[in-house]
């Protein structure tokens, strides 16, 4: 029960931060930092794929409702959720994951987090910008935007964890 409450509060916070702050940064070269994939990343590891997809869809559509993207974020979030179990399986430790842990940087270690989240974020951003442009002759711009935004989103996600996820609580 406490877990559901925690993730619900996180849901609202991630939407608000994305919509009220990150959507309005308007950086140059079309850089668009997206923090909400981190929410999907931090959902419990034991969560099965179908609920994961549904929650991600809800998250994406909530962000769409505030940014006039009409389903673009929902689509990208669902892609992220669909690939999460795949990537997690690919990078599983030798003796499997412990249940009851969260895929954050302290529990799983830097190396694992950088690989897993980096890959997923790359898939997410590529999908987002591909669908947004949807024109073959703008491919170069898609690549540029994806490359630059992924770096910023990743750094931002790292910082958020370093600041807000308390290490002691996680180590138990």
């Amino acid at each position, binding site marked *: 029960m406490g877990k559901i409450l925690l993730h619900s509060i996180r849901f609202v916070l991630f939407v608000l931060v994305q919509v009220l702050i990150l959507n309005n940064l308007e950086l140059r070269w079309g850089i668009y930092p997206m923090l909400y994939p981190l929410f999907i990343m931090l959902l419990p590891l034991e969560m099965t794929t179908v609920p994961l997809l549904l929650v991600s869809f809800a998250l994406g559509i909530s962000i769409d409702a505030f940014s*006039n993207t009409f389903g673009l974020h929902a689509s990208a979030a669902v892609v992220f959720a669909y690939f999460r179990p795949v990537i997690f399986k690919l990078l599983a430790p030798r003796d499997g994951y412990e249940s009851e842990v969260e895929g954050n940087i302290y529990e799983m270690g830097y190396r694992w987090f950088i690989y897993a989240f980096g890959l997923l974020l790359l898939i997410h951003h590529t999908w987002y910008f591909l669908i947004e442009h949807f024109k073959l002759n703008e491919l170069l711009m898609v690549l540029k935007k994806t490359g630059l935004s992924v770096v910023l989103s990743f750094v931002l996600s790292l910082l958020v964890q370093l600041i807000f996820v308390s290490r002691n609580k996680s180590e138990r």
Partner: protein
Amino acid sequence: MNRISLSHYFCGMRNLIAFYLRFRIFLVFAALQGVALYTYFTSSEFPKLQLLTTTGAFNAEVLKVRNDVTKHFNLENTNKQLEWENIRLREKLRQSVYRVEKGAISIDDTSFKQQYTYIPGTVINSTFDKRDNYMTIDIGQISGIERGMGVFSSRGVVGVIHYVGTDYSIVKTVLTKNINIDVMLEKGGAFGLLKWNGEDARRGTISGISNDMVVKKWSKVVTRGGSGIFPRGILVGRVEKKGFIEGKPLWDITVRFSEDFRSIQHVYVVKNLMMQELIDVEKHIPAPVEEEDL
């Protein structure tokens, strides 16, 4: 014999279930993806659900609160713009004009009929660095806004009304994929369609101007007023660059927008009082008949 076929049967069953479970995930994924992409691609033509746009009652309220905080950063700039516009309009008033032929002029009011009225609105949310940039303004159905009306600011053309909510509406700005606004060169009158390629929020292109037309650098580009969305002559920008398109007898014209989409606060929505008349008249244009090639 019986046993073997039974275990075979169970094995097949298990595979089927495993396959089904695997497939179920993909099925849910495909369904959600389908919904998301469908709303995305149809909404860029015509949004249906108010809840999913920034005109939703709750969404708009949240954005309005944010705008109430951030709008003050631009206040000085905004005031200056409005001041300039006032000066420009004041200069056109009768009291600022010296009458050359005293007593000779009487204005016959019946020879002028109001065609356009303007509805002022405030921008509460906007972007300029996405591929399709929309803007939310704080006037909607209640103020008489309709889909397809033109939007401009004191600096120039902004876009077209894309979706109307009860109290808010969404503007499809010039910075979108298929904006295609009718524009012309103020001198010479050559006309084409305004387009945006997604790269620079300060520059767009005009397509369709034949390269035997004279196009001067820094000449003004204004609206053509063709489809009754904008009055004729609202500033769009100036010609910054022109070049040849390979293989086509057209100019490749780059326009520098007079509007700065990075800082729009107040806009006007154009209401054409004679729109119905225009539509009725244009109904009589015969549909193009496709002639058979001989």
